[in-house]
């Protein structure tokens, strides 16, 4: 059945099976492979995307449920010219190793900092506790997010 939504600023209609998850639709139908699949049961957070501004696990919703939504993936948070302040902060703080959880971490952090640019380390850890990283031990990720707060503050 057809589903119509906006992905990274582009309006599109995709023909999907009703049982197809949103993450499979993004990865395999739209070839947006930056969103990763780590558990398919909503625990690891690797598939986190933004749906109408909220951080959402794309493995836990069906593509058809996203009808009319505004979806942003890691590709939509990136540009070709330079790293965004949040991405640059991840790199500077060595907040990634294998990179598999990273898109989910960045989308989660982006949603948090967009809403709460003055959040403290405890709040970052609380929000981030839904995203599993197996490489870094999280300390550098928390530091990277805290260091990127200034880019999200309104002037």
């Amino acid at each position, binding site marked *: 059945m057809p589903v119509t939504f906006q992905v990274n600023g582009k309006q599109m209609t995709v023909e999907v099976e009703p049982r197809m998850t949103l993450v499979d639709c993004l990865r395999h139908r739209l070839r947006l492979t930056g969103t990763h699949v780590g*558990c*398919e049961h909503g625990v690891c957070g690797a598939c986190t995307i933004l749906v109408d501004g909220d951080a959402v696990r794309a493995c836990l919703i069906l593509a058809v449920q996203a009808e009319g939504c505004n979806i942003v993936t890691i590709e939509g948070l990136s540009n070709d010219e330079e790293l965004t302040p949040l991405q640059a902060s991840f790199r500077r703080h060595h907040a990634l*190793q*294998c990179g598999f959880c*990273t898109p989910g971490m*960045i989308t989660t952090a982006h949603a948090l900092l967009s809403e709460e640019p003055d959040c403290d380390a405890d709040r970052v850890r609380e929000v981030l506790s839904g995203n599993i990283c*197996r490489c870094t*031990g*999280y*300390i550098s990720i928390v530091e990277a997010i805290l260091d990127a707060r200034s880019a999200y503050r309104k002037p």
Partner: protein
Amino acid sequence: MRNTFIGSPVERREDVRFVRGRGQYVDDLRPDGLLHAVILRSSVAHGRIRSVDASAALKIDGVHAVITALDMPGGPPRIPMRLQPLPEFKPFEQSVIADTKVHYVGEPIAVVLAESVAVGEDALECIIVDIEPLPAVSDCEASAKADRLLFEECGTNRAMTFTAECGDADAAFKTAPYTRREKFRTGRHYGLTMEPRGVMAEWDAATGRLTVSGAAKVPFFNRRILAKQMGLPETAIAMVENDVGGGFGARGEFYPEDFLIPFAARHVGRPVKWIEDRRENLMAMNHARQAAVDIEIACARDGTILALRGHADVDMGAYMRTNGAVAARNIAQFMSGPYRIANIELQSSLWMTNKTPVGTYRGPGRFETDFFRERLFDMVAKDLGIDRVEFRRRNLVPASAMPYRLPTITPFESSDEIDSGDYRGALDRCLEEFGWADKAKLQGQLIDGRYHGLAVGCFIEGGAAGPKETARLEINPDGSVAVFIGSSAVGQGVETVFAQIAADALELPMERISGVHHGSTDYVSDGYGAYHSRSVVMGGSALLDATKNLHDLIRAAASKRFGCASSEISISEDRVIGPGGNSTFADFAGLTAEGMFLNKKHTYTYGAHAAHVTVDAKIGQVEIVDYVTVVDCGRIINPMTVRGQVIGSLVQGLGGALLEELHYDEEGQLLTGSLADYLLPTAGDFPNLRAIVTDMFPSPINPLGAKGAGEGGIISAGGIVANAVANALATFGVEPHELPLTPQRIWEMVEAGQGNRIRRQPAPLPACGERSPPP
């Protein structure tokens, strides 16, 4: 060679694509005509396969084939061992697919090829498998009884017993003034990677060439296995390493799917991809760590350790996998860790059980032994009335004793030695950074409802496995240099650290190193990959050799061009200077030189850990208030990445110490089949960790002076946490003997300790295995 980039916290090159979501992992590949494989796995731990009926599945629209053992002429091939391939292990090797018997829940029985994963999973539901269940062997005790055999033809469930020996332990025990004997256990957990495994194979019938994507860790070795199994020359197979979402020892070994998917691709003549889901991952990827020891120590009254003896029983799961013997071997050989113990006799028996087979997980055998040993040391120090820091300091291998010989392990007859280090210096540094003297007064204190405890311990970490590594340099048309390396990337930053090494070796700016190409079998003549903390030491040293060879080639070519002797040519950065003229690397574009490094010795990174925990005795909950690790790892290439790996591995170790456990019931059913059951550390769990990485003692065994690093964080974590908990709950007589220290286990120990204040002897654990009776 310069020292411009080596030692600097250079930001990682690979991050530029990873933070944008532009990494390319195997599941991101989608060639035209792709079929998806899904695997039917045994739901029975032990049984005889009577029949597999896939007729209904084959009728489903979109299902192309169902492959079973019957499709493999001559029967399914077996997977040989990569490390310690002793003839005794042969009968216990795994076939790529079950044919007559199944031995664990998760063992592959059939492969469905379908237009989509969803259709393939529909088909799985329609395959009727008739298995006659047999009684399962669910632990070492049951395995040792031998009334149920996994492999009847072997007559035993014991695959092997290793013995580590030095001096004369029995003689030392006879005259020792003090001895203590204890039993400890470590739980089963595993090197869970965030990216599940995946394989994609493309068969080109016209050329007879096979391309396998998703290779990791040891692509060259795996190609050797696959070529033999497929009846192809090695040169007909290209193993392609994509981005790899974590390794930790588990990813990249040769698993059944590494044959099944290439076989399927050739079988149907279309590209085939298989991506493991998390439930499969929990039951199909190598497990690790499950071991029990009965260990005895002998000491002089002043705390000098005289001897160590005992027996370990290691739960191997159902088959001997490629590196399955490593942890069991290490448990015997490395029980003494960084301590000088003149007399050792330790045995380690490998017991087959109807569970997922085991393999290495970061710090294999060392996480286990460090828990056993450091726990025992704290008990002994208390008995002898010696400060536990002093007990350790007294027994550490002194710097003057380097290189220090480790116990000999049989049946290999192999020995090993520690290369260099100042262990007491690292311990002192750790205590100082931690503030041990100030915090000592907190030990056992009850403050705001939580008991405070401290612990300290020391470790060694082996690295740099040989025998060889290969590197190749090639000059690009613009005069920049490309690096090709036999080492593999599993997320550790290979593209950055090798660019640092290459830039300094060639005395070029880093941006003149165009790229570091790793892992795939097309890049160098031979490669050994990423395991045993070997990539930088082995690959980096090979890179130095390649640099020398490239410079020689340039000199030879320049001497022809300038009409002079090659000895008259000098190279400065990318300028080639002769008596009759100048040139640059760009004039020698296309020149390429390989180099290699051969090595039989190991590097030993070492250090110390100290922790301050608090425990809520009412609910058994542990909080890490402070944790300091000092790791001295030889010459550091990139302090940022090595520190990152130390912290990352420490958190993995804390997961194994407090959270992670794979549970089975007595019928061999896995009870922890999701991440809601198998608990991993999350961002809120361990915020207070500090790592200090030093380079006091370059390794004398390689030209870089580097030592393997990245496992040191995990190795000590279990022992440190358990000792800190024991210290906190000393008033209850709590003496942990088992990991992980889940809230329930801690609560039970506190409950058992209530009322009888300090219990000297904990309840014995059930005995396990065939072992010689204590003298």
